[in-house]
């Protein structure tokens, strides 16, 4: 859904995205001690498996991004988790792109990390399940729309002939944002009941 393939973006956008992604991953790695790496890796594998589920949406179906949830559960570590997941998608399915790894990592991880880290503490503190579900849904929907905006920005910065597509692109993310909001809210409600510690990025 948000995977820009090779051959579309201009060199400055690819290089800029690569540098931003490297910065994000450096930030992620600094926060990962040796004990946190198996947790991040295996959670990342679970997010990967979750995003392969096709969720029906009207006549078509969508794949969840789960980036907002990754921001809540992994914090800045989501940059590294998204990079690894995207690299695996290229190697396993030939899906996505090699040169666009950096841009795609930023497009998917950055909104998730920002919204997840901004609203994550409030989600952990929330006493009322309705409030928690609302906040979690907001993280899911906003992360998806943020990704849509960044994909549009990557296209618009690459060439003026892409601008018309870029300007309508965010609208195509609305169904995904809706599904993502409901699913994220359910997952957070489930985790809050079953294993509340999981909703914090750090180990206890």
């Amino acid at each position: 859904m948000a995977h820009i393939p090779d051959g579309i973006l201009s060199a400055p956008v690819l290089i800029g995205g690569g540098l931003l992604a490297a910065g994000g991953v450096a930030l992620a790695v600094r926060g990962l001690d040796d004990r946190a790496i198996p947790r991040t890796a295996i959670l990342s594998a679970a997010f990967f498996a979750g995003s392969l589920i096709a969720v029906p949406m009207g006549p078509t179906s969508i794949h969840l991004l789960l980036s907002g949830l990754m921001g809540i559960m992994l914090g800045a570590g989501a940059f590294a988790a998204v990079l690894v997941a995207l690299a695996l998608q290229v190697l396993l399915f030939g899906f996505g792109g090699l040169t666009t790894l950096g841009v795609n990592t930023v497009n998917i991880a950055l909104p998730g990390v920002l919204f997840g880290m901004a609203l994550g503490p409030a989600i952990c503190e929330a006493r009322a399940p309705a409030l928690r579900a609302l906040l979690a849904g907001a993280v899911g929907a906003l992360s998806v729309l943020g990704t849509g905006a960044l994909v549009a920005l990557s296209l618009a910065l690459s060439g003026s002939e892409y601008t018309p597509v870029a300007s309508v692109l965010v609208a195509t993310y609305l169904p995904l944002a809706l599904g993502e909001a409901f699913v994220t809210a359910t997952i957070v409600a489930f985790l809050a009941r079953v294993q509340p510690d999981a909703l914090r990025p750090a180990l206890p």
Partner: protein
Amino acid sequence: MILAPTDLRLRLAATSIAVACLSQLRSPAIAAAALAVALALWLASPARRHGHRLLHVEGFVLLLFLTLPFTVKGAPVFTIGPLAASAEGFARAALVALKMSAALLLVAALLGDLEPARLGGALRGLRVPEPVVRLFVLTARYVGLIRDEARRLREAMRVRAFRPRTDRHTWRSYGNLIGMLLVRALDRARRVEEAMACRGYDGRFPYAPLPAPLLRDWAGFALLAGGGILALAMDIA
């Protein structure tokens, strides 16, 4: 594959260089030649068996192909109401399609048969930071396992008459499924971490130094990377 270097470091580097070069081509003729080469490599590679995987096209890419003829200014070919499709626009859409397909086939041909969980040594050899490599091999190792777990959970839902639809019940059911996957993943992570600690894990995976690449590896590297750079140089000239 005769051309691909057997040394994984060189194969990853050569593929990246070649794809980076061809993603920046501007001439449709050279892009078409690149596609022909990529197709030939792909047909000669074992990845050919998984051809159906390559048919996937992202929604916004389709949108791009549909709009490019109308958004690039040039000699009009036909008009629909106020919109004029230009020859330059069609050329632009064709160029993007050629480059995208060439990159896709090249990646499938050269990297399609790698086992991600065994790439650790090669990635270390390419100076990828150690924690990222560790994260990559562990994720690669557990993706298959957790996908199997997800498949079993979905089968369990299906035999209980669950039918995915566009409604809140479906979203809630899938949310619970993914939540369960995450809970099990956390459990598994704790067990894996303990098992690693028991076996004297000191924060590093021991990777034996890889043998130096052979001459034929360097030859394959030079052909692939050089081919990409040559195409780009001819394009700019």
